């Protein structure tokens, strides 16, 4: 009897693939037709063996980078490395693709100063750097931000009613730290490991917050580097979380997977749960949402005003200070505050007020939580 699963089929339009018979072994790989399939791809429903899947995954990242002209030949690419699954897979895949792309890689890890958590993660990054023979540079919040570690920030915000927003504070500072680290190693481009699920969560959160400015900016595969910032991109943006994790599994990659000691961003958790339920009913929901954001265009009246430059560091800012400088300023004055979307007040009394919209250079609240 011929298994129906041995026939190549595209299930792109079928939200409910037929359930396999529990008595039957896994079907054959739809690509090589030799090995037993090891997974069903979330987007297409295609069943592939581990080897064919990893090859397809790498080819798709290559296509994302080439088609989007994200990393030109000769680029020196700083990979934001956290030791977690996404940045581990990103670094591994780019290392495989580097000769074909004509790029060179530098790992940049950020030490946020989170006792008992970041040390173990950095150890994982060091192991990766050694195994893959990639240069690694670690930049620390404490060195970059006048002694502020994330532990100190958390203590400072504990009584201020902002203790739940550790992730948001950390996101702003990490973005800045990665930029500084990338400049330090002479990088021309910065890449981060955000995957499709991260991006879809962000789109959903921005919708739910009514944050049109971020929604419109969140599309695309990265930013071209406005206001003197290095160009940034997310080569895994079209890869689902499931596939990132399975790629790491089949390639036997060693990554760090402990929860940060600070409470994760609660709102993102709700967005994630909702997305998981949507995905169960419609496997393409995640990617569809990412594409939706890409195609979105704001009506002229809804567009945020063009950004200016931060009075302190020169980065793009929609107010007098960019978010990182405003945050550090607040911390140093003992009034830790941060603008998240609307309702930002009291941060920059001494500067010319612009529209209370967050600046394009730093999307912390809507930046996915995963470190890189």
């Amino acid at each position, binding site marked *: 009897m011929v298994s129906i699963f041995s026939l190549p089929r595209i299930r792109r339009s079928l939200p409910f693939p037929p359930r*396999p018979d529990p008595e039957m072994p896994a079907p054959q790989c739809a690509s090589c037709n030799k090995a*037993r399939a090891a997974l*069903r791809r979330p987007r297409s429903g295609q069943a592939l063996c581990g080897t064919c899947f990893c090859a397809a995954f790498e080819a798709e990242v290559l296509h994302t980078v080439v088609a989007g002209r994200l990393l030109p030949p000769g680029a020196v690419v700083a990979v934001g490395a*956290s030791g977690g699954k*996404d940045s581990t897979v990103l670094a591994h895949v780019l290392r495989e693709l580097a000769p074909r792309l004509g790029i060179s890689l530098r790992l940049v890890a950020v030490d946020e100063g989170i006792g008992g958590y970041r040390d173990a993660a950095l150890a994982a990054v060091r192991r990766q750097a050694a195994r893959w023979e990639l240069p690694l540079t670690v930049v620390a919040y404490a060195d970059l931000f006048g002694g502020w570690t994330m532990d100190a920030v958390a203590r400072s915000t504990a009584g201020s009613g902002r203790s739940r927003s550790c992730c948001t504070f950390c996101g702003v500072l990490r973005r800045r730290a990665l930029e500084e680290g990338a400049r330090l190693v002479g990088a021309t481009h910065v890449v981060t490991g955000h995957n499709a699920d991260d991006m879809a969560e962000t789109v959903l959160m921005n919708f739910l917050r009514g944050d049109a400015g971020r929604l419109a900016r969140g599309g695309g595969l990265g930013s071209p580097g406005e206001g003197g910032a290095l160009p940034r991109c997310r080569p895994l943006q079209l890869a689902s979380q499931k596939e990132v*994790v399975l790629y790491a599994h089949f390639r036997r990659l060693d990554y760090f*997977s*402990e*929860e940060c000691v600070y409470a994760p961003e609660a709102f993102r958790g709700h967005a994630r749960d909702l997305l998981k339920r949507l995905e169960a009913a419609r496997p393409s929901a995640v990617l569809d949402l990412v594409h939706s954001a890409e195609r979105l265009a704001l009506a002229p009246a809804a567009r945020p005003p063009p950004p200016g430059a931060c009075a302190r560091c020169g980065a793009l800012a929609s107010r007098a200070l960019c978010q990182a400088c405003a945050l550090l300023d607040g911390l140093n004055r003992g009034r830790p505050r941060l603008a998240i979307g609307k309702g930002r007040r009291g941060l920059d009394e001494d500067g010319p007020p612009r529209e209370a919209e967050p600046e394009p250079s730093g999307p912390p609240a809507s930046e*996915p939580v995963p470190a890189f």
Partner: protein
Amino acid sequence: MGVSCELGFLNMAAPLSVEVEFGGGAELLFDGVKKHQVTLPGQEEPWDIRNLLVWIKKNLLKERPELFIQGDSVRPGILVLINDADWELLGELDYQLQDQDSILFISTLHGG
């Protein structure tokens, strides 16, 4: 492989020896222990993933069960591999366990 047939007349499935493994951060709910060699007692019904999950919840899960199990299945975002193959190819909860199977649960929900 396969259930011992000598016991067939008792209308009982023989005990199964299977390897249960947790990864990607899921092990944190199991005292940080990744690999568990377990023996599932003989029972009338054949063992499937559905009742393996009940067994795991009762015998292995140490904390915050809602982070691992939701309803009668795993929490969305936890991948299940049966002998290194995606359970979606094998009937998911209805897959019938064989002696010496290895079942791997990987969380995709931890860090990045």
